[in-house]
């Protein structure tokens, strides 16, 4: 006998969560609602159709149960959790990827011109952490969170590569 709910997973995003499973007919149910989406490859992209609307998509990153996709050029990150792993993470209070540590990485290779913060400085979201010179521009690297600077992993006048860790912040 077939179970009525197959492949039950929780998709946990940056600010949204979805409960998804397949019913007996193999239809996808998201948060209790049947969702029909067709996926077609076209011109090297994935085209998704839903409710008469077309979305173009690209799978950017896949790391075990963590995925990054682009839909219409916007980034979406989700981790796929089984009911068990979801429950466990909830209990452990890890709140799924929303750890208290916030790591600032270099968005591009460049030279660190100026560091505006020190270890243990308290910062607010929107504060400039440092100035990175790249593409002939001085780019202010800004904190997206409130917190305290735990570690500065770069130094003034040093060259950093893309994705190098610059600053670690303990979120408050």
């Amino acid at each position, binding site marked *: 006998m077939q179970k009525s709910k197959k492949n039950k997973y929780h998709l946990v995003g940056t600010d949204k969560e*979805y409960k998804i499973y397949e019913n007996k007919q193999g239809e996808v149910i998201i948060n209790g609602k049947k969702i029909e989406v067709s996926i077609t490859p076209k*011109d*090297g992209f994935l085209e998704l159709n839903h409710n008469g609307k077309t979305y173009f998509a690209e799978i950017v990153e896949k790391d075990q149960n963590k995925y990054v996709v682009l839909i219409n050029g916007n980034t979406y990150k989700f981790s796929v959790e089984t009911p068990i792993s979801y429950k466990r993470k909830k209990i452990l209070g890890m709140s799924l990827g929303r750890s208290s540590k916030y790591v600032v990485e270099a968005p*591009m290779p460049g030279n660190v011109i100026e560091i505006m913060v020190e270890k243990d400085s308290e910062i607010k979201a929107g504060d400039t952490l440092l100035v990175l010179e790249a593409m002939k521009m001085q780019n202010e690297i800004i904190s997206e969170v409130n917190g305290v600077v735990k570690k500065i992993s770069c130094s003034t006048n040093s060259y950093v590569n893309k994705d190098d860790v610059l600053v670690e912040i303990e979120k408050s």
Partner: protein
Amino acid sequence: MIKSVLIANRGEIAIRIIKTAKRLGIKTYVLLTKKEPNSLYVQEADEICDITETTSAIPEFLDIENILSVAVKNKIEAIHPGYGFLAESPYFAQRCKSEGITFIGPSPEVIYNMGNKTIARQIAIKHKIPLLQGSKQNVKSVKEALALAENIGYPVIIKAAAGGGGKGMRIVREKSQMSKMYNLARSESEKAFNDSAVFIERYIDNPKHIEFQILADSHGNCIHLGERECSIQRKHQKLLEEAPSVALNDELREKMGRCAIELAKAVGYENAGTVEFLLDGDNNYYFMEMNTRIQVEHPVTELVTGIDLVEQQFKIANGEKLNYNQENIKLKGAAIEFRVNAEDVQTNFSPNIGIVENIVMPKGENVRVDSGFTDKAVISPDFDSMIAKIIVYGKTREEAIKNSIEALNQVRIKGIKSTVPFFKAVLRNKHFINGDFTTAFLDKQMKKMYHQEADEDMIAAFLIYKTHMEEIEIMNSKDLDFGKGRELPPWQLTNRIKSL
């Protein structure tokens, strides 16, 4: 007519110049560099000058002597500098002149005078062009800056004398910030322009940025081709430009246009140029600077006037008289330009370096695309982040906005993120639609910097769910379907290939 031209530039503007030059029967030469060996502009040119072997510490498109030696060796008559790089280098224009090469642009003296913002201000004052209150000379110390700011009143802006493009510019709102901002502006100016000189002027918080396109020939004729609305900016970098501006009526257009012509005539301008103004809420306008080159945003003017600006540049450089009087210039319809940059709007517009794996640009009778890239193009940190410009026309501004939404919906870019989701949000913003926006638009009138279609988030979750199920299925059935040649749906195949 000029028979041959060396284009001392790359990317979309090189291709743009090639198009017109070919139509005029001018043979085009471009520089092949080792940074972009497979670039589109190289494929479009008639002749390629290989400088990949050049060993010089100076970046290719800034290497005056090397560029000139290429031109001399190939007996090329003229040099078109495009925008950026050497386009506003008076020394380069002078060196062209002394080698007997026609520089497509104004004279070295004019480039120098307008390029140096302090001198440009002095000329404007002399000819009674409206100007913001500010320093008459370069500011030499923090102390002097503080004294000036006290006199002008805060906020003030510190600008690079040699500046442009938003580099070396800092706003100072109160005394305590002066020393930090002064030093930042100087160091940025030094880096960007090899000249740390800065000046100070009154800062208007919410102005509109309006610029006038002018054409001046060597026979003393000068006309303007109307304005461009360039207020949609981020950190003084233009993102979207329009022609005409909703802020101008015919009377104001004529007044500002006349002012632009007056300034051009005062400096003895020759060729295509742009006079930039700030416009405040009470329709007061102030001369800001003059750009002595073809602008990135020139296509919007071309679409509403029907005049090919690059063609005019060649003809003027060739010594021809302008074919138009001011009365002939009629603005028809509305045009909007979108600068598609390799930037991630979701992470504060940070440059997104990578490979453009696949790119689909919009098509249609109201759409023009000026692009420097094709598939598999590398977005290199060596150059700016612009991939393409999409320029959309409409009989009215309303129609241009509607056509733009349709055009941007056709854009597909794989491999990097672009500013397209940002433009989709702008086009739906009621302040933009109503035209009541200023240079503070991004800071004050946009709540969200990118547009999401309804359910995009859920669609993402769906796709990831399906992909994950496939992954699990592949894992589970690996042994079972080995060698069986099981048929896979094509999108699943794509995924598998990708995951390799």
